C-alpha cells in the first residue's frame, strides 16, 4: 500500500463524511451548524481516543478487546478516589487515570509478549477480569453524581476557546500520536513489527516488546477516557461502556486500518470514529429507528473492508514469481 493510496483513502473517507453531512443537512439543516458539529465531535471524543490506541495495537497484528472494560475499571477507581479524597486536584486524578490504564494495558502486553498468548484470548480474558474487578471494588454499587466533587465533574466540560476541554484533549492526542507514529523510532517499530515481523526481527526490532508498548498506549488512552467518561456523565458502574470495544474496532476498520497489521494512520482512525459518531448522532434526529442505525453502521463496516480489499487487489503485485528453472 503506498503512502499515496493511504492518503487517498483518508481523503475518500473525508469525502464520505461530507456526503453524509450533506444528506443529513438536506433533511435537518441545523445538524451542520458549527455548534452542533462541535457537539458531535465532543460526543465522539471517547471513541476517537480509544480508536487511536486500538489502531496502534492492530498495526502490530494484535487486538485489544479489553479497552472498554479498562475504561470502566479506571473510571470506577478514579471515581472512588474522588469520593474518598474530594480535595485531590483534577490533574492528579488524570495522572492516576492514565497510570492505572497504562498498567492494565501493560498487563495485556506482558501476557502477549512474555507468554506469547494470542492477543484475542488475552484481552477477552482481561476484559472479563477488569469487569469483575469493578464489581469487587464497588460491590456492584453505582458511584453517583452527588458523591463526586464539582471540580471532578466540571473539568471535561469547561470551555476553552469555544470548545470543551474534552475536545481539546482529543485534538491534542490526535496531534501527539500523529507525531509519535510518523516521527519516532517507536512509531516506525509499530509499522515494521506489524508489516513483516520476520523482517523486523532481523532488523533488530523486538516484535514482542513493540506489541507490549502498543498495549500500554492503548491502556493509557483507555484510562484517560475512563476519567473523561465518568466525569462527563457523572456516574460510574460495572457495565459502563459495555460492548464499546466493538465500536472502537469498527472505527479502526472503517478508518482503513488493515486488520492484518502494518497499515493504518491516526488520521484514519479519527475519521473512522467520526463517521460512526455522525451516524450515531444524526440518525435519531432525522427520525431513523435505532435498528436502522445498527444496520447502517454494520453496512459501513462491510463497505469499508470491501473497499480496502479491492484497493489491495487492483494494485496487484508486480513481482512476478519467476519460474523456477532450477531444482
Amino acid at each position: 500500500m503506498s503512502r499515496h493510496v493511504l492518503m487517498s483513502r483518508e481523503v475518500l473517507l473525508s469525502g464520505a463524511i461530507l456526503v453524509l453531512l450533506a444528506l443529513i443537512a438536506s433533511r435537518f439543516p441545523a445538524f451542520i451548524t458549527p455548534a452542533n458539529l462541535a457537539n458531535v465531535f465532543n460526543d465522539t471524543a471517547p471513541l476517537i481516543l480509544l480508536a487511536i490506541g486500538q489502531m496502534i495495537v492492530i498495526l502490530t497484528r494484535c487486538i485489544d478487546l479489553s479497552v472498554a472494560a479498562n475504561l470502566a475499571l479506571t473510571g470506577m477507581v478514579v471515581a472512588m478516589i474522588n469520593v474518598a479524597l474530594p480535595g485531590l486536584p483534577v490533574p492528579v486524578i488524570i495522572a492516576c487515570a492514565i497510570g492505572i490504564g497504562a498498567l492494565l494495558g501493560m498487563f495485556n502486553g506482558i501476557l502477549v509478549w512474555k507468554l506469547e498468548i494470542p492477543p484475542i484470548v488475552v484481552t477477552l480474558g482481561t476484559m472479563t477480569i477488569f469487569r469483575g474487578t469493578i464489581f469487587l471494588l464497588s460491590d456492584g454499587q453505582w458511584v453517583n453524581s452527588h458523591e463526586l466533587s464539582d471540580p471532578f465533574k466540571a473539568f471535561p466540560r469547561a470551555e476553552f476557546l469555544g470548545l470543551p476541554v474534552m475536545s481539546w484533549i482529543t485534538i491534542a492526542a490526535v496531534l501527539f500520536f500523529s507525531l509519535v507514529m510518523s516521527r519516532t523510532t517507536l512509531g516506525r517499530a509499530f509499522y515494521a513489527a506489524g508489516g513483516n515481523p520476520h523482517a523486523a526481527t532481523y532488523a533488530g526490532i523486538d516484535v514482542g516488546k513493540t506489541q507490549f508498548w502498543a498495549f500500554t498506549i492503548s491502556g493509557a488512552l483507555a484510562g484517560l477516557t475512563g476519567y473523561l467518561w465518568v466525569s462527563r456523565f457523572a456516574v460510574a458502574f460495572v457495565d459502563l461502556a459495555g460492548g464499546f470495544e466493538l465500536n472502537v474496532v469498527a472505527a479502526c476498520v472503517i478508518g482503513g486500518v488493515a486488520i492484518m497489521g502494518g497499515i493504518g494512520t491516526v488520521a484514519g482512525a479519527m475519521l473512522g470514529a467520526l463517521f460512526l459518531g455522525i451516524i450515531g448522532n444524526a440518525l435519531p434526529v432525522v427520525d431513523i429507528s435505532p435498528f436502522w442505525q445498527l444496520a447502517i453502521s454494520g453496512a459501513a463496516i462491510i463497505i469499508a473492508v470491501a473497499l480496502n480489499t479491492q484497493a489491495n487487489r487492483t494494485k496487484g503485485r508486480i513481482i512476478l514469481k519467476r519460474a523456477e528453472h532450477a531444482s
Partner: protein
Amino acid sequence: MLMQADHMPSTSGTQGTQGDIPVLALNGVTKTFPGVTALSQVSLQLFAGKVTALIGENGAGKSTVVKILTGIYQPDGGTLEVDGASVRFATAQAAGDAGVTAIHQETVLFDELSVAENIFLGHAPRGRFGLIDTNAMIERAREILAGIGANIDPRTRLRDLGIASKHLVAIARALSIDARVVIMDEPTAALSQKEIEELYELVETLKAQGKAILFISHKFDEIFRIADNYTVFRDGALVGSGAIADVTEAEVVKMMVGRDVSQIFPDRERNIGAQILVVDGYEHPTEFAEISFTLRRGEILGFYGLVGAGRSELMQALFGITRPSGGTVLIDAEPVTIRSPADAVAKGIVYVPEDRGTQGAITALPIFQNVTLPSLGRTSRNGFLQLAEEFRLAREYTRRLDLRAASLDTTVGNLSGGNQQKVVIAKWLATQPKVIILDEPTKGIDIGSKAAVHDFMAELAAQGLAVIMVSSEIPEVLGMSDRVIVMREGLIAAELTGDALTPETLVRHAAGI
C-alpha cells in the same frame, strides 16, 4: 560414459531386464523458461520394481523433471511415455490418474486432520447420499498402513505424529490412489538415522509390490544402498545413466560436478586484511558443535554443505536469533556476546537471510523506511526520527546499488523482485557492517541477477568487508570463495583452500565419503 544402459549386464537385478518396457519414461525432453534452458534433451526410464536414483547438484534440473512427471510443467520438446505409449499430462490430476505420485521434501499434508482423512482427502470412499463412509475409510487406511508396515492408528491426528510417520502417511496416500510410480524427493533430509532405516525397508516393500521408484537424494551412501539404477543430470542435461552396481561413488561425483567453473565469476583482486572475526568452540545443544573459524577483512568465506547441515542455524546464532550454549566470539579481537539481532547489528554483523520474501523487506513501507530500519539509532535523536537524515542514508545506499525507482517514497511492495532484493541489501549496507552474512544469496533468482549479486559481493570484499556466504551451489562456492568451510551434520567437516578446492572434495566432505 555409461549412456542409456538398457542392455547393461546386471549383477543384482539392475535396470529393466532385456526388452522390458519402462513404466514411465522421458525421451529427449526439453524444457525452457524465459532466458534459460532448464532441461535439454533428457531421457529417464523408470521400471517396475526398480529404484532409480536421480542425481545432480542444485540447479541440475531435478525439480523440473519431477514437475514434468507430475503434470505441473509441460515439456517443450520430447515425449513422455507410460508403458511405451506416448502420453501428455496436461494437469497434475492427469498424472495422478496415470498412477504417478510424488512425495515431497516437505510433505504436503494437513496437521489437523486424521491420518485416514489425510490418506483419502479428495477420494474418500462414499456411502449413502454421497456422504463420506468414515468406517470404510478408516478400514482401508488401516489396510494400506499395515501393507507398508506402518504401525499408525488411522484415527490419530496427523500433528501428533513425528516427521517420519508423516512420511509414511504420505506414502500411504500415494498407495491409496493405486500409484505405479512413486517419486521420492529427498525423503531422508529431515529424518533421524533410525527413521532412515525404516524408510529403506519401506522402499524395499514398495519394490516388492512392483512400484517403480524415482529416488532423489544428495546422499551417496543411501543412493548406493537402495538404488538399482542411476541417472545423473548436470546443468539440465543427461550426463550418464546405468546400473548402480557398475559405477563407483567417485565416478558419480565426477559426472555430477565435472565442469569448468572459472569463467562465469568476476575476477577480483584478493585484498585480504586483518583478522576481524574469530569464532572458537561455538556450540548449540541440538544444532551444531565444535565450530571454530576465523575471518579476515576483504575475504569471502564460503560455507558449503547439504541442506540441513546446520549452516543457517550457525549463522542465526551468530546473529543473535538463537542462543548458543558455549564458545566465544571475538570481533576485532574484542570478546563479544550477541544477545539479539539489534546487538549483532550494533557490533557490526548483519545477516541477509535466505528467504527474502518473508524475512527481508516490509512491503507496506516505503523504500527509505525499509533502508533505514536497522539504522534507526543513527537516523534519530532521542527517539525522534530525522527525516532528512533518513532520506540521505537511503539515497546514498540505493544509488550505490543502482536501484531504480520513481522515488524513495515508493512502497516496496510496488517494486520488482530484483529491486526488492536491492532494498534489502541496501538496508544492511547502510548499517556499515564489518561482517556480512549472505545466506543462499542467489537462490531462486535468474542468471542475470545472479551475476549482479556476484559482482556486488566481490565489490563488498574489495571494500574491505568480510563476507560469509552460505551456498549450496558448487560453482558459486568455488567461483566466489577465498576459503570454504564444509559442514556436515552440525560439525565442520573440512576447511579447504587453494588446490584442495575442487568439486569432488566439496561433495566428498559434505556427504562424508
